[in-house]
């Protein structure tokens, strides 16, 4: 019954999406506003309909209806209710429904905005969002149905289908396989929704961009309308990446937070394109330039959103052969190709009308530096794209798979990220239009001199890594320049309004949220850079097998093995937990309990580190082996991760800055009201 309602809701949503796209396009072509309005209503209705489908899945998951194949795959009797709910995005079928639900929610939110000034864009925004939604719904309805039931055929084979195959009998296993243990971490529960929110939000600026191309609007209205959408998309994608990093650090047990895994990179690529876009739209708004480039960037971002979802959903990452076996792989591939080609065709059609009206006067003007920033972002993107697809290319042409691992990525993108840090340090001091080397140099040299203090101190205190010294200098330069900008603005306010420094800073940020929100983001990036350099260059590790009472030393730390306990839990785990006494510089600093959880149903171990965490460093201990009988000896892998917590701290500041930049500002008053006010003032009213 519930599965029937859910499936019907999906089918109705699919029909609504198709109707919405068709009616909007037809209404716009034939100038029939009533059809466009009907399409808008269809768009608004799609969200409640998909909500019904999503709620139906959740009801089945919570009720433990193991006769439904998806429920049997991602839940089990031992799972608590909250994990059953989050299992909605724990598997292929459910996550596609979740993606569509978010897409419909964002489309509805767009449909509810005031369209007075952009009535001409509305039908084409509906077309783009509804085609995207229809595509995802088609994948669910025709290939990845979450409501399919388990059947036993007359031949005794197990199959899944929504409707009863001839002669087949319904089957309901007493228990399910349960959610992958790796996905039960709080970070992983929130991480996918954040990534999906980021992915889906980027569809909105893309839809507006395509609408502007279709109707031939060459102004920057689409950018102004979607600025907040873009920031929200960027915020969620950034948050998703940070949470993903934290999850990897806590759960995957390799001592790091980022492994240059294709799935990670798939989420990072749209973020990179989106970051380039966020910078370059400022040039279009200020100078009327880079119109083509901004269109290209948003097309690229949208395509990368689809590509990211394709990579993680098609099975292509495991092998190109899995691509052919996966039903949705070719569909995704075709949709990405068609949408990319159509978008480029629209752009080429309007190429002449999008010509900028300004020119670059100086190589060190703000717009030039933003262009350089975009160049570096796109270079990083190109490198990551190559790294992700090369194993597939190799397998396709030579039949041999290769691994493109962290060493390759770090060697190539490291210098490019350093270039970005340098630009972050220099660009805030340059002006739009006609900055010269001399004026920029005059502003910069004292700040550069100040920033050199940090690497100088590090050098004197014994740091000899050239890469680390360079990285710390660049990060310090960004921090110094950014803080100087805050100080300069706040000082001006204090002189003018007599405000205290904290009040001046708050009001300064409030007056120009975008600029100062951006600076807060830069400060977040600085802290993250400190953390990344710390762990990447100065991480140390050791491994050893200890008898009870024996010790292992890493740097200033000594760990003494006290013993190991093993016990079963009610949720189907066997936990092996070691106890270690930790000493730093000879002084006891507490105990750590690294453990290994073995999940019986999934036959899967999970290594949970014991971590002593301070702002300065983490001592990260993994239990990697033990004597099964007696537990007299155990093997530990220990990492010393300097400054790693700066990454999380910087991430939090990064999110805060994005919130400041995205916080709604009052819309400029309409011309009519301003004119009326001016007349009233002139009349001395």
């Amino acid at each position, binding site marked *: 019954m519930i599965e029937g309602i859910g499936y019907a809701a999906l089918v109705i949503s699919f029909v609504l999406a198709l109707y919405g796209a068709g009616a909007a396009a037809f209404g716009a072509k034939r100038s029939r506003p009533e059809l466009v309005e009907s399409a808008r209503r269809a768009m608004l209705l799609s969200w409640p309909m998909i909500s019904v489908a999503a709620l139906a899945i959740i009801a089945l998951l919570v009720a433990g209806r193991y006769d439904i194949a998806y429920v049997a795959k991602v839940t089990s009797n031992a799972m608590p209710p909250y994990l059953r709910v989050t299992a909605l995005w724990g598997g292929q079928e459910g996550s596609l429904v979740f993606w569509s639900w978010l897409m419909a929610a964002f489309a509805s939110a767009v449909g509810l905005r005031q369209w007075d000034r952009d009535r001409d864009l509305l039908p084409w925004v509906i077309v783009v969002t509804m085609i995207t939604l229809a595509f995802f719904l088609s994948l669910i309805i025709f290939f990845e149905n979450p409501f399919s039931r388990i059947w036993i055929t007359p031949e005794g084979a197990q199959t899944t289908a929504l409707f009863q195959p001839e002669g087949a009998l319904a089957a309901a296993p007493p228990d399910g396989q349960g959610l992958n243990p790796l996905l039960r971490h709080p970070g992983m529960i929130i991480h996918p929704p954040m990534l999906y929110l980021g992915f889906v939000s980027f569809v909105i600026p893309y839809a507006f961009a395509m609408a502007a191309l279709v109707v*031939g609007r*060459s102004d920057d209205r689409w950018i102004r309308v979607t600025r907040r959408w873009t920031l929200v998309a960027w915020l969620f994608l950034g948050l998703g990446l940070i949470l993903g990093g934290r999850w990897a650090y806590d759960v995957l047990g390799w001592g790091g937070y980022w492994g*240059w895994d*294709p799935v990670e990179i798939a989420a990072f690529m749209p973020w990179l394109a989106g970051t380039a876009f966020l910078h370059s739209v400022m040039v279009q708004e200020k100078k009327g330039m880079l119109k083509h480039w901004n269109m290209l960037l948003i097309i690229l971002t949208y395509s990368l959103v689809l590509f990211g979802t394709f990579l993680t959903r098609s099975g292509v990452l495991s092998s190109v052969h899995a691509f052919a076996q996966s039903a949705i792989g070719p569909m995704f591939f075709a949709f990405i190709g068609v949408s990319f080609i159509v978008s480029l065709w629209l752009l080429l059609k309007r190429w002449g*009308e999008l010509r900028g009206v300004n020119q*670059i006067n100086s190589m060190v003007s703000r717009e030039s530096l933003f262009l350089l920033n975009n160049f570096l972002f796109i270079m990083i993107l190109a490198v990551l794209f190559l790294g992700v697809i090369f194993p597939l290319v190799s397998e396709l042409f030579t039949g041999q798979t290769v691994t493109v691992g962290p060493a*390759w990525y770090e060697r190539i993108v490291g210098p490019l990220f350093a270039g970005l840090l340098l630009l972050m340090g220099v660009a805030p001091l340059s002006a739009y239009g006609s900055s010269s080397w001399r004026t920029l140099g005059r502003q910069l040299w004292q700040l550069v001199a100040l920033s050199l203090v940090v690497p100088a101190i590090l050098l004197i205190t014994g740091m000899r890594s050239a890469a680390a010294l360079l990285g710390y200098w660049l990060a310090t330069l960004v921090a110094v320049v950014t803080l100087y900008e805050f100080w300069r603005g706040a000082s001006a306010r204090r002189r003018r309004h007599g405000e205290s420094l904290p009040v001046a800073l708050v009001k300064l940020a409030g007056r120009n949220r975008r600029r100062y929100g951006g600076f807060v983001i830069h400060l977040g990036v600085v802290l993250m850079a400190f953390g990344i350099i710390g762990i990447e260059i100065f991480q140390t590790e050791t*491994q050893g097998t200890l008898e009870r009472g024996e010790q292992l030393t890493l740097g200033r730390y000594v760990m003494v093995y006290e013993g190991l306990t093993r016990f079963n839990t009610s949720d189907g785990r066997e936990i092996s937990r070691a106890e270690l006494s930790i000493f730093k510089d000879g002084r006891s600093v507490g105990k750590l309990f690294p453990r290994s959880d073995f999940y019986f149903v999934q036959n899967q171990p999970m290594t949970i580190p014991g971590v002593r965490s301070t702002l300065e460093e983490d001592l990260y201990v993994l239990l990697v082996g033990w004597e099964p009988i007696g537990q007299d000896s155990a*093997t530990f892998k220990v990492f010393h991760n300097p400054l790693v917590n700066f990454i999380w701290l910087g991430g939090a500041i990064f999110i805060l800055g994005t919130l400041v930049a995205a916080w709604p500002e009052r819309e400029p008053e309409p011309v009519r009201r301003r*004119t009326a006010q001016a007349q009233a003032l002139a009349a001395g009213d």
Partner: protein
Amino acid sequence: MGRMMVCTGVLASLLLAGVGTVQAQDEQPTDDQVNAVAKGLYCPVCENVPLDVCPTPACKQWRDTIRDQLAQGWTQGQIEQFFVDQYGDRVLGTPPATGLNWLVYLLPPLVFVAGAMILAGVFRGWRKPLVSTIESASPDDRYLERVEEEIRRRG
């Protein structure tokens, strides 16, 4: 005399090498020595998880193999080649610079140079006078005219 010195030298080298091997066999490699080699290897099953941190039993067996090979005096290169011979190039952390793999080493600098040249061209183009461009921007002008007309009418 010269030949005798060469023979003595060769003999001494062989003896020293033999002593080295015997020493290597006597000493059991530490976990850190094993992990230093394993860090650059990937097993074909556990994708994208370096061998030194992979918790599966299969990867543990690989590490035991590395330990035995180190104990026998094998070098890191020999051990890597052993795994490549057994399982193919995918066990290495980076593609070996042969055949099609050259693409991953050549394309990034080539794309960078091409991108830089395009960027330089764009900069040069933008620094030219824009007279013809402004003339061709008629749709914008028409749009602006319409906006100004609307403001005049409403004002």
